């Protein structure tokens, strides 16, 4: 038992180090969650979280099985006096099995991903009745332009909301992303939305809020000195409140 005793002591020592540092710095155990945070507020968010969970299960099982096998091999086949390794060059059957199995699993995951990718990103599948907003990212702020009453951009009743994106609940929204200077990335963690805003390009990104409330808008692409400050808020209104807010902003815009 000498070997196991020593390994046990080693593991116990390692665990002690982890626990001591954990207690000193004081993170919460829930920080170590591998499941997506339960905060999604977009229509496709739950599907994406579900896909994450599937991949987590598949990779998790492979992870546990391979690492345990590795450990067992290490212990079981450790050097002992007088033992000789077996003279094995490999096995074609084994190669065929694990090549095929891996191929099938990853292909299944790839094609399972396709549906959701198309739903979120296929330009032809953007809901036609979506509410249009133009978003101009610049160092280091988010300028959302609303079309005003006439529903057209580049007219007098347009107005800009800085660093706060107001959207209605239960209605698809298309944000036409643009950038003034460098590349920024439009990241709404709770909506499971991320899309780079590239200068010289207009990139549409759509989503539909399922809950009223205030959420985070972040920049996820390094965009210069103030990148870390380039945050904003998404405010999801009820549809009626959103209309009120629009009317109010428009009136203010016309007064100027």
């Amino acid at each position, binding site marked *: 038992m000498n070997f196991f005793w020593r390994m046990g002591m080693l593991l116990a020592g390692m665990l002690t180090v982890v626990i001591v540092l954990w207690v000193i710095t004081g993170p919460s155990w829930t920080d170590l969650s591998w499941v997506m945070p339960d905060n999604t507020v977009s229509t496709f968010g739950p599907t994406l979280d579900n896909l994450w969970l599937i991949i987590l299960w598949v990779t998790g099982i492979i992870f546990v099985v391979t690492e345990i096998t590795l450990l067992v091999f290490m212990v079981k086949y450790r050097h002992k006096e007088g033992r000789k390794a077996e003279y094995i060059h490999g096995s074609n059957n084994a190669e065929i099995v694990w090549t095929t199995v891996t191929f099938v699993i990853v292909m299944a995951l790839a094609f399972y991903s396709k549906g959701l990718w198309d739903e979120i990103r296929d330009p032809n599948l953007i809901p036609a009745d979506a509410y249009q907003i133009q978003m101009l990212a610049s160092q280091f702020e988010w300028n959302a332009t609303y079309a005003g009453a006439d529903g057209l951009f580049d007219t007098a009743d347009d107005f800009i909301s800085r660093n706060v994106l107001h959207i209605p609940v239960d209605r698809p929204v298309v944000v036409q*992303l643009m950038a003034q200077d460098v590349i920024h990335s439009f990241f709404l963690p709770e909506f499971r939305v991320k899309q780079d805003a590239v200068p010289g390009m207009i990139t549409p990104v759509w989503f539909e809020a399922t809950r009223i409330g205030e959420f985070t808008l972040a920049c996820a692409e390094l965009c210069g000195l103030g990148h870390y400050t380039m945050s904003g808020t998404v405010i999801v209104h009820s549809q009626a409140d959103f209309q009120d807010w629009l009317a109010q902003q428009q009136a203010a815009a016309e007064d100027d």
Partner: protein
Amino acid sequence: MSTTTATETHAGTAEHHELSFVRKYIFSTDHKMIAKQFLFAGLMFLALGGLLAVMIRWQLGFPGRPLPVFIQWIFPDTMAPGGIILPEFYNSLVTMHATFMVFFALMPLMAGVFGNLLIPLQIGAEDMAFPRINMASFWIMPVAGFIMLASFFVEGGAAGAGWTSYAPLSTSGEWTGVYMGQILWLISLIVLGFSSILGALNYVTTVMNMRAPGMTWFRIPLATWSIFVTAWLLLLAIPILTGGLILLLADQTLGTAFFRPEGSGEPLLWQHIFWFFGHPEVYILILPAMGFVSEVIANRSRKPIFGYHSMVIAMVSIGFLGWVVWGHHMFQSGMNPLLGMTFVVTTVVIAVPSAIKTFNWMGTLWRGNIHFDTPLLHAVAFVALFIIGGLSGIFMASAPVDIYIHDTYFIVAHLHYVLVGGSLFGIFAGITYWYPKMFGRMMNEGLGKVHFTLSFLFYNMAFFPMHNLGVQGMMRRIYDPNQYEYLQGLQPLSTFISISIFLFATTQILFAFNFLWSLRAGKVAGNNPWKSCTLLWTTPSPPPHGNFPEMPIVYRGPYEYSHPDREEDYWPQDEPPETSEAGGQLAAAPSPEPVPGD
């Protein structure tokens, strides 16, 4: 057609028995000395990159707190006034950490050190094909490194647009406040490209042309195979980067508009060029480690490598597939979303050869006779951590999931599992395994085990929780995550990670000490301390100029361990078969490759 081998250079030097100090240690054309030069230079840049990482983690672990007393005095007010790291300096730290680690530490430590050391010795050549080009390949590297280092001291500081230097952020100082630093970054990498290409040119030519008689393609040890594939990737990928860097430099200095949207340039074109280079580059950084690990695991478990042919095929196919997956770095970039699925499919296909390699390593350990030496521990850690890095890659290969985790700490965790858990542990395995051949002495085993254990522990403590930060949505390259309310609760975990990194970095002092101390005081190694089959170990330690006393003849594969008919548990590649006379046996062997020429 002339068939003389280009050995004039060697023949010339061979006549001088005593080389001058300069020719022997500085401008040496001996591949083993060049390997050592790469080793020392690479380790120094590794230490530098590590210090930059420590600075980054200080800011993230203790945002806004001044650096510890002695360290804060090092930095001028333009970087860290009162010891508090400025946002612009943080951006430079992030950029330069990655640049130094990728281009000046990992690449030289893998291809530079082991390409030079292993290729001639493992295939039975007296030196590289072009020794003088080889020397140039090394000396360009510190020049480029010096230019890169100098960028810290110019006005505006070092480049701060990330190691990917996405245009248009990188095209003009008006976006970053960095003018000269970015230009020096570009020039340094252009210069460094020549080093890589000259090195790779040598590796490819040497492997193809200078193998000893009987060293058929499928008798080449896997470490050499891995560097051969890597060398092809270097040869074909580096010029792409060089072209892109030159165009970006023109945008910076001449005022062209290749990537600047105000002149109709295409920012995404830079990303395509960068990642078309960048993904093969990823394999440049991991394939050699795979080779070292194969070598160590077969030797230390005293067993033939499981599935030698499929190991080779897997490496070659990774080399090919690496060219068609670059788009997976760009799912959220604004690239046509309809291209997304193509890149998803090509990307997941790469999981197949990676899995084949992993299972074959495990198959090699199975029913082996595993010796728990430092090289083996590092090699097995490589496999264990590469599994994690590989599996976490599947998350981001799935384009819709990547929407969420792109540019978060999940990516940081993934790439550090591959490049630290994979490449760095692979390098440790390689250094500890081949150290006796390089320097004639063994590294201290006890110290090595302590270093390994602490490294493995602190490494995982540092990087495993980064996955979880990513799951919570923490972005990478953020100077102060506490700016975001939803990330404030994660500060204790960031501190935990930072302290683990400090411990990991401190542990490396053990390695440095062991490395330097063993140069003088290590146990004398003898020719073949690991009882290995490859040609490399038939030479004296360290091998003399010219390597082999006489041309070795190869009779069998490189991993003939524990053959049932033999007393010894290894069968060197160059040992003539006992049954019949050497010549007849070799001539009878079915081999499309050249048999000994006279």
